[in-house]
């Protein structure tokens, strides 16, 4: 090198022990997250899971093919029960998505630092769940290729959307939610994608370096960039918080603004939001408990984090239980014959089994979380989370199908049975969800590396105060 170069190492500054430890800790986080994406061969369990998910997805695609080429008549929906599995699944999936936003935004605003280990995968789950949710109303329209009519645009038909309809509110709420979730997720991922880029470049993996490099937009981690980035992240969290509450409120308006007994109630928005968070947390841990085991992430997604989530499930589960009780009380207190009947029928009518499955899974099961021993054993949490998912699915089914099957005119009453295409499509969305999640887990930074580092005690190393 030329003598003009002032490049130098500082002599007599070997780095103090505290610094060495801090750097090692940061490097360990990077390595532990990146190895999942960098492993030359995917894990066998991962491959097996992907295979199952793809088969489920194929079932779903076949069901969609039959549905689109034949018509919605292939479903079990009838003139009486005209909303059934499709809308049940829509509400269920949307609700699952809400936990992701709650974890990433609400817990961020309330400074719950434990969120950093799970927020990335929870946000990914939100996006994939909303994708699955969006399929159902789209296909229920019968002619999904005309869905763009719902977007207000000047057209030859001189037709504008009917903005006073809750179904139109749904379109706007879900679209906004989807876009916000994607942008929030992606923005959070950019610094970590830059980490991946630099690791790939250092190893000489040019193709991946270009892909991760393009996705990380040339992020340099400069203080001026971080300054604006953090501001934007905080504001996005602030915007996403009211958004997540509005989305499920709007979804509940689909029912609450109608005059059907069992639907026509003002309790719906908070009741739906609590249920959404409840089911979303259950789904996050249905996914993360096996994943953290599979990819050696137990020291990042810690047992304490599972415990905190159990407490949230306990709380929201009881809110849901309170809502069930309130519905019955109001039905009795209103003195309205139809309201009375709707709720007695819900519990003791032809769908009694669904009702008690719902109460069992949503009200009784979470009571187990009172015990610390259960909150500390991932296997039991995993099983209980699946039960909660089942219970929350039945909650939506009970609200939708039992109310419709026994509405005002007894001559109209009927029973609802799903067809194989109803089941096939639901299985297909589960397949889509798991496929996307598995791909995400293999190729993206599954844990918010920079946020984890920022939340570590080492992040304050060397500071004088």
């Amino acid at each position: 090198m030329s003598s003009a170069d002032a490049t130098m190492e500082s002599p007599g500054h070997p780095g103090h022990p505290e610094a060495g430890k801090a750097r090692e800790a940061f490097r360990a986080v990077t390595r532990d997250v990146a190895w999942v994406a960098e492993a030359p061969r995917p894990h066998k369990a991962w491959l097996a899971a992907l295979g199952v998910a793809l088969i489920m997805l194929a079932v779903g695609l076949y069901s969609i093919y039959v549905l689109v080429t034949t018509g919605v008549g292939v479903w079990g929906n009838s003139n009486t029960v005209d909303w059934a599995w499709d809308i049940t699944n829509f509400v269920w999936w949307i609700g699952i998505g809400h936990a992701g936003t709650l974890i990433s935004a609400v817990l961020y605003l309330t400074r719950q630092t434990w969120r950093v280990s799970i927020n990335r995968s929870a946000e990914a789950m939100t996006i994939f769940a909303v994708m699955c949710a969006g399929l159902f109303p789209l296909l229920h329209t019968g002619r999904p290729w005309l869905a763009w009519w719902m977007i207000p645009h000047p057209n030859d038909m001189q037709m504008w959307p009917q903005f006073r309809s809750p179904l139109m509110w749904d379109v706007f709420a879900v679209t906004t939610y989807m876009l916000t979730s994607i942008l929030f997720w992606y923005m959070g991922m950019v610094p970590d994608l830059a980490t991946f880029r630099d690791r790939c470049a250092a190893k000489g993996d040019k193709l991946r370096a270009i892909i991760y490099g393009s996705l990380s937009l040339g992020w340099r981690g400069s203080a001026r960039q971080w300054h604006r980035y953090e501001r934007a992240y905080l504001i996005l969290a602030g915007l996403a918080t009211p958004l997540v509450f509005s989305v499920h409120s709007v979804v509940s308006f689909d029912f609450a603004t109608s005059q059907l007994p069992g639907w026509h109630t003002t309790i719906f928005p908070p009741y739906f939001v609590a249920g959404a968070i409840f089911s979303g947390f259950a789904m996050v841990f249905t996914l993360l408990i096996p994943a953290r085991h599979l990819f050696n992430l137990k020291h990042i997604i810690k047992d304490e984090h599972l415990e905190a989530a159990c407490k949230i499930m306990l709380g929201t589960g009881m809110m849901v239980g309170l809502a069930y009780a309130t519905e019955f009380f109001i039905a009795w207190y209103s003195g309205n014959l139809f309201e009375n009947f709707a709720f007695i029928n819900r519990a003791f009518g032809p769908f009694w089994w669904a009702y008690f499955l719902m109460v069992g899974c949503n009200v009784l099961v979470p009571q187990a979380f009172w015990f610390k021993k259960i909150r500390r054993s991932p296997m039991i949490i995993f099983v209980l989370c699946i039960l909660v998912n089942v219970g929350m699915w039945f909650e939506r089914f009970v609200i939708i199908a039992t109310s419709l099957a026994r509405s005002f005119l007894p001559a109209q009453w009927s029973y609802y049975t799903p067809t194989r295409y109803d089941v096939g499509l639901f299985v297909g969305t589960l397949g889509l969800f798991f496929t996307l999640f598995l791909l995400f887990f293999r190729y993206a930074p599954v844990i918010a590396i920079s946020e984890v580092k920022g939340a570590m005690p080492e992040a304050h190393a060397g500071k004088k105060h």
Partner: protein
Amino acid sequence: MTDDHTHDPADHGAGYGQEAGPLYGVLAEYDTPGELLEAARKVRDAGYTEFDCYSPFPVHGLDEAMGIKRTILPILIFVGGFTGTCGGLLLQWWCNAYNWPWNISGKPAWSIPANVPIAFESTILIAVFTSFFGMWILNKLPQAWHPFFRNERFNHVTDDAFLLGIEARDQRFDAEVTPKLLEAAGAIGVEKVHLDPDPASRHMPKWITAFIVASTAFALIPFAIAAKARTSHSTEPHLHIFPDMDFQPKYKSDQPMDLFGDGRSNRGELVGTVARGSLNADDVFYRGLEHSEAGEQWTTGFPRQLEINEQLVKRGKNRFEIYCAPCHGYDGRGMGAVPQRVAATGGVWLARNLVDVSNPVSITMPNGQLFNTISNGYNTMMGYAAQLSHADRWAIVLYVRALQRSQNASLDDVPPDHRSGMQMPEAPTR
């Protein structure tokens, strides 16, 4: 410090060709976030402005230490959100209350409560877009390349390294003094970063530019097709990507059909049969024909079923003005709206002058023949049998006779007690 972060000055830079190009800046590495913070404060106090700190996560306190001004992003986002609210309300008002008011269960076309959810969602949406895109634009990202990326140390910024970089364009920058300042602030390593000597390497590679241009052009193709379709005509049926209910398993009239011997889907009347109620045996009423020893001839009178009175004339006037006047004109002189319009556009549309005495074809035509002309058409005029009942056609014949008389009348035809104050207008010209 581990080995991979220390550099032997002797071999340094050889692989990067750093000495060759112009100096871009100086990078200094610090051990901990705390030391970076202190160094940033010193660099700021020394009066530097074109410098930045680089870290794997946001180091708290660095904004203040570097003297970074608060970003204007929140203000932009507020403006964006407010635009979203107004835009959402305006959209709903314009669509549902102004451009196409729509009665839904008698509810008002414009009622704020029903419009709140969408206004709220559009507020959030535009605010989110502003924060996301605004943040990247203010951060001048995406940026394909930065000179610091040439430095090996810099590649650890996203992992575990804490760096401070001062750019050579800073007014206080000095190739000798600046590195010393950074070192004095506790740097474990200070390196100069040079630009690549080859200016071409600082530009986007040609193939990337070509790719962007090509993909942009490709993306415009659908719009070009749509634009062409809007300005051109085609006799081909439109593409049916989704058939909807456009093709149904049924026969329409005049379509071929294999089932019958004649290969037609139309089933006409059988030869030698008459449909019930369609015998129409009275030739005078139904055809305007009279039979005598001389043979068949047009009747000159009216069928006896019809009572000739003012009511029938008025009925004839009413039908005439609907079906005949568009071509023949209200006065029967053959200059109705259609010939006038065609003449105005430079074409020719001939309609007979029904009342012309100089060429009295229509005047001398027997009633029966006039009736037949209305029924079956004449020259380019089509028949009106499908639109007008037999009685109405006779009423029109009667009205045409009245027109012929009135249009060629003189003062003598007016009863004497109605003549006072009356003047004959000049005969209208064609």
